[in-house]
């Protein structure tokens, strides 16, 4: 094959890539807003209220659908932040990456059973400050704490235009008060989170 013919095939390839890009951009994926809204705001033994995003969260999340609430249940107060990356998957980060980037140092982490799945409990320090976060990804059926697995789920879903399953959302739970959190009690008894 002559060089000009090979260049011509490259032009064809480039045209196809541009076409494919525009096609995929034009076909919206079903989002997980319904899944976000399925977390009850109040129940027989708990109440919640919406919390405003911190400026840094607001900037990071952009147009991504999200919820941030303060829950009070059984003497515990905790903040729940959940993000649906359907419109922009790149805002759904590995939470440890964000915290490390903000200068926090990971002290410990261990998996915690959560319903039929698993979450990750991480502890961080920054100078004299300490922070804890429990996080997981859920598509409504499975719960896990692996950023790589999320990455793969989100990719497969986009490659198949949504046929590969529901969009996983990232859930981060943090204590609202400075008292130590009884994570075991929370993760084994607070049903709305276990079944979300």
């Amino acid at each position, binding site marked *: 094959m002559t060089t000009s013919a090979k260049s011509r095939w490259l032009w064809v390839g480039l045209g196809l890539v541009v076409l494919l890009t525009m096609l*995929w951009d034009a076909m919206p994926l079903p989002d997980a807003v319904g899944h976000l809204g399925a977390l009850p705001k109040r129940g027989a033994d708990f109440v919640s209220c919406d919390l405003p995003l911190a400026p840094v969260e607001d900037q990071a999340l952009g147009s991504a659908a999200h919820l941030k609430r303060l829950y009070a249940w059984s003497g515990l107060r905790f903040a729940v932040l959940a993000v649906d990356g359907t419109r922009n998957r790149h805002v759904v980060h590995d939470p440890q990456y964000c915290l490390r980037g903000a200068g926090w140092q990971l002290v410990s982490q261990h998996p915690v059973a959560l319903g039929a799945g698993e979450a990750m409990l991480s502890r961080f320090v920054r100078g004299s400050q300490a922070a804890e976060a429990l996080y997981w990804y859920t598509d409504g059926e499975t719960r896990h704490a692996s950023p790589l697995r999320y990455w793969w789920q989100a990719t497969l879903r986009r490659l198949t235009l949504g046929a590969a399953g529901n969009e996983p959302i990232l859930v981060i739970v943090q204590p609202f008060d400075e008292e130590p959190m009884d994570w075991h009690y929370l993760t084994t008894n607070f049903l709305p989170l276990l079944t979300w």
Partner: protein
Amino acid sequence: MTSAPAILKRPPVVLWGILLAALWQAVGLWSDLRHSPYLAGGVAALVLWVMPVAVWWGWPGPRPWRRRPGLVLAWAALAALALGATGDLNVLRHAALALALAALWNWRPERLLWLAGAVVWLPAAGWLASRCELSAATVMALRWVAAVTLATAGIWNVFQEKRGGHDN
């Protein structure tokens, strides 16, 4: 039918089209490089990394271009672009940009090191570094050292090619 020459007088124009498509796809890269703490210095690292290709293009005289490796790199860039767009994968969009730039100069085996050196600005490398428990400051220092080394070695390599008459 005449067989194609192994070395062309200059890279084909379509490679600029592929580079433009890769830049279009990687438009979010600039924001990532400026705002993520683990990517501090990433814009400068990218500029340094591109320098050898810029010097190769800016050098007066002919620009001989090895056809086979150049075409392989161009098709690899297109494949990365296609998968990056359909899977919404930034890591492949960024890889496509690196491959499209690599296709634009005369490929030589030692330049594989330069291509692999794209980790100095790839945002995915910042995430991997964070998983390795490296601090953002350490990553930035490593990035600077690697980017300056790559730029220096790459420009020296171009200088040798142009002065030594390799492939000319």
